């Protein structure tokens, strides 16, 4: 049987569950492309699962062949830089944007970075995602699966089975489910607020 050539991209806005998804895929048996440079901290106690060269994809795409058959984490805005001579399975994490912003605010403060007006960044994220999804729909080399973070954390079996089917490799779903820790679902909106 030939080796899988598709690159699995785990994407989304920061703080939308991309690290959890990487952990799940790893436990399921999918090889990850990571370098361990960014280590676990308060914001991501189980690690970031990042590959630093991703951040330089505009100038450096030479690592992409090494990502075939593996999963790599890439923040949403960098998806535009993926060359169309590869095939991708994009798992895009979706999370309530107010929760995302609240979590990002805490992370920015811990990093000593000024926090923007939440209304301004919310509008910017909305415009960004609208444009991105319109673009994704035109990309023939990208298969897309959207995963809702809240559903994944609160009722993980169904989305995990969908993820396994989407990846189309023999992933260990039971192992994937062990990654889900509802206690890490912080910065959630209060009930009834969205």
């Amino acid at each position, binding site marked *: 049987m030939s080796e899988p050539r598709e690159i699995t991209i785990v994407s989304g806005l920061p703080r939308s569950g991309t690290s959890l998804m990487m952990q799940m895929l790893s436990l399921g048996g999918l090889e990850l492309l990571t370098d361990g440079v960014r280590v676990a901290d308060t914001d991501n106690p189980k690690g970031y699962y990042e590959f630093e060269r991703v951040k330089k994809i505009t100038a450096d795409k030479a690592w992409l062949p090494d990502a075939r058959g593996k999963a790599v984490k890439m923040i949403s805005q960098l998806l535009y830089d993926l060359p169309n001579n590869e095939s991708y399975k994009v798992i895009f994490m979706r999370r309530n944007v107010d929760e995302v912003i609240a979590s990002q605010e805490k992370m920015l403060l811990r*990093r000593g970075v000024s926090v923007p007006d939440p209304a*301004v960044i919310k509008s910017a994220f909305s*415009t960004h995602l609208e444009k991105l999804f319109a673009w994704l729909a035109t990309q023939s080399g990208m298969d897309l699966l959207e995963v809702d973070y809240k559903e994944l954390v609160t009722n993980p079996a169904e989305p995990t089975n969908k993820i396994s089917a989407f990846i189309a490799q023999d992933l260990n779903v039971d192992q994937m489910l062990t990654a889900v820790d509802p206690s890490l679902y912080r910065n959630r909106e209060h009930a009834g607020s969205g």
Partner: protein
Amino acid sequence: MPKTNIDDGLYERAKKAAEQAGYSNVDELINTAVENELKRIGEEDAEAQVADQLRGLGYIE
């Protein structure tokens, strides 16, 4: 309704283009062009704000 000035030559070109492209009149073409430009500028501003946020969080350089 507000009015604006447009160069005569540009107006004639827009009028001709509107006819060829199937717009009901030149006003419709101009409105569409302004809407599209406003959307583009808004998207650029949004992407810049998103980039600043991602940089602050350490996800892009």
